[in-house]
């Protein structure tokens, strides 16, 4: 971060960088590059002797008494500033490092790039231009001062998995040539889509948009995802979610390969319930939504929207075989946290069964078929696949749903107390009479007790 001060008689400024590899338990460290009156810089390593608990307090913006805990170590002149200062600059809340990469002369006659006498222009043997190699070092909220903000910015800023500008962006590397907007702030469109984004199907306007400096972070996210071996289909979806063109907009959980539709993100309660469910990391969550996360060819989009066949929630798997996308649409968010979590899990199970069936090659021998495929065949003259899944869910998913909700509720009650939620939407499909009238009544009474005492809130 950059700090400026005009009270010193000269245009003082300093730069502070957080040291990110300080061992756990060794406190916090910053590098301070401080301008001197003679125009040179001095580099300091600032060490804060604080405990892990105190670090947590600092991150939470609680008061920590630092008296006697700060040590300044003057580093050898130019340790950092001499080598890097001229190449590092701060722009639009981000730090960049740039360096000049020389071009190559023509391979045959030694002409330099742009020499009109070169007879090899347009061939692979043509001279190449030099270019500025720019790397984005970090994007943080600017702040700090002499000695710097102890945390080096807001290290807790945002969900580390979401493209929300949080400091999880701390180290992102990008290459660009000098003609890129990001490098020299040219306002004109750059119509070139370079690797690894070149496989995206984008319009000219979209290419200009993603190349503009305002979209640096989005572009870097996409590039890093693809460079790390990400799936191009998901990258395409991610672009559509991030371009904010009013169609399929939302946030992208790159790590988990989930698209969080804008309608979903904007519903504070629904997003809160989902986050709690995700944080609880139950076996059912991992075995449903988690399977989409680990499957590079299939993607899940979570949407707050309308279903044609209910006003609760639905799983739209209409295009799973064509686009690989399943939409979990949550319509009703008026219920409790546990009610809404049960809706998400119910639809996530449908999504997982669709994923399973898509990947499952049915065998010729009915006896070898998994139970779900047997039920599909048995009931196909009466019901659609989706409703047959409800029958399967009564046999296999009551305990997993109840267990996931119990974990979400911090194991406050025995598992039976959560079974009423699990049976929502499945009671009429209980063809095996697994839920007796008496049990249904007992579970409903338990549900009242849970709702009266749970500490789960998303208000």
């Amino acid at each position, binding site marked *: 971060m950059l700090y400026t001060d005009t009270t010193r008689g000269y245009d003082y400024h300093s730069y502070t960088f957080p040291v990110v590899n300080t061992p756990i338990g060794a406190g916090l460290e910053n590098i301070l590059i401080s301008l001197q009156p003679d125009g040179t810089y001095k580099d300091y390593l600032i060490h804060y002797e604080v405990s892990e608990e105190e670090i947590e307090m600092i991150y939470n913006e609680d008061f920590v008494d630092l008296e006697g805990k700060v040590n300044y170590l003057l580093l050898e002149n130019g340790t950092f500033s001499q080598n890097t200062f001229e190449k590092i600059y701060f722009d639009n809340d981000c730090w960049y490092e740039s360096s000049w990469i020389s071009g190559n002369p023509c391979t045959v006659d030694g002409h330099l790039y742009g020499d009109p006498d070169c007879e090899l222009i347009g061939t692979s043997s043509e001279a190449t231009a030099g270019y500025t190699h720019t790397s984005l070092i970090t994007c943080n909220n600017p702040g700090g001062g002499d000695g710097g903000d102890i945390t080096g910015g807001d290290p807790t800023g945002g969900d580390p998995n979401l493209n929300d500008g949080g400091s999880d962006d701390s180290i992102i590397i990008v290459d660009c040539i000098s003609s890129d907007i990001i490098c020299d702030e040219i306002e004109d469109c750059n119509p070139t889509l370079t690797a690894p984004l070149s496989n995206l199907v984008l319009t000219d306007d979209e290419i200009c948009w993603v190349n503009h400096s305002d979209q640096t972070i989005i572009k870097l996210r996409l590039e890093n995802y693809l460079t790390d071996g990400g799936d191009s289909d998901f990258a395409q979806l991610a672009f559509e979610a991030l371009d904010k063109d009013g169609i399929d907009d939302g946030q992208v959980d790159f790590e988990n390969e989930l698209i969080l539709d804008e309608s979903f993100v904007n519903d504070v309660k629904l997003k809160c319930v989902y986050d709690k469910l995700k944080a609880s990391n139950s076996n059912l969550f991992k075995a449903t939504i988690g399977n989409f996360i680990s499957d590079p060819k299939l993607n899940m989009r979570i949407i707050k929207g*309308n*279903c*044609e*066949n*209910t*006003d*609760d*929630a*639905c*799983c*739209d*798997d*209409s*295009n799973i*075989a*064509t*686009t690989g996308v399943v939409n979990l*649409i949550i319509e009703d968010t008026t219920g409790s946290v546990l009610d809404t979590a049960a*809706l998400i899990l*119910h*639809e996530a199970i*449908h999504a997982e069964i669709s994923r399973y069936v898509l990947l499952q090659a049915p065998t010729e021998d*009915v*006896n070898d078929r998994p139970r779900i495929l*047997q*039920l599909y*065949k*048995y*009931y*196909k*003259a*009466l*019901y*659609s*696949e*989706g*409703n047959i*899944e*409800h*029958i399967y869910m009564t046999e296999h998913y009551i305990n997993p749903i109840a267990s996931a909700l119990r974990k979400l509720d911090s194991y406050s009650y025995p598992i039976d107390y959560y079974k009423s939620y699990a049976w*929502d*939407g*499945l*009671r*009429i*499909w209980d*063809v*095996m*009479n697994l839920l007796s009238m008496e049990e249904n009544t007992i579970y409903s009474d338990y549900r009242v007790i849970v709702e009266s005492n749970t500490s789960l809130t998303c208000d």
Partner: protein
Amino acid sequence: MRLIYISIFFIFLFSCRSTNTDRNIYDVVINSIVHPMPPPPPTVIGEDNNEISKSILDSLQNVPLNIAVSSKLISFEFKNKELLFINKINKGEIEYHISNEILDSETLFGRNSLSFKIFSEEDLKYSTIYDDYNGVLKMSNIKYNDNKNEALVVVSYSMGKLSGNTVLFYLERKNGAWSIIKSRSLSVS
């Protein structure tokens, strides 16, 4: 004058024929998707009992059901319109939603054990509708091929909380009768 009468007759004839065709298709798909609660499957499913028996099916067809029907039609489109009638309904990407088009109640038809009542979309309250009705039905308009012997229709049917489904049907007319050739599940609640 005679020419005018003949013209009116043919216009009337063709409009009836269109309505009757819609009615026949709705009859087929409604009878396919609207059923009472399921009977239990065999304890062990094997080669000899891997499909529900015809006698059970026949008995279920006679169970009387009261069906609430939305007055608004579902609209649907394939992104690639060329995929509409090449008998590959499982291939193309499809979009669908409730439209502002109104269902022609004259076309609504099903087996004798079914009775229908049409509701406006605003009056369809899922939280209470199942107190009086066995299910809620929504239909799409019907898309025909140029020869009018192939048709696509989307039907949504719900039997209770989180118990609805929406299905795309592909039908063909052979020997004057429409029959379902393929279906594709679009969503489940």
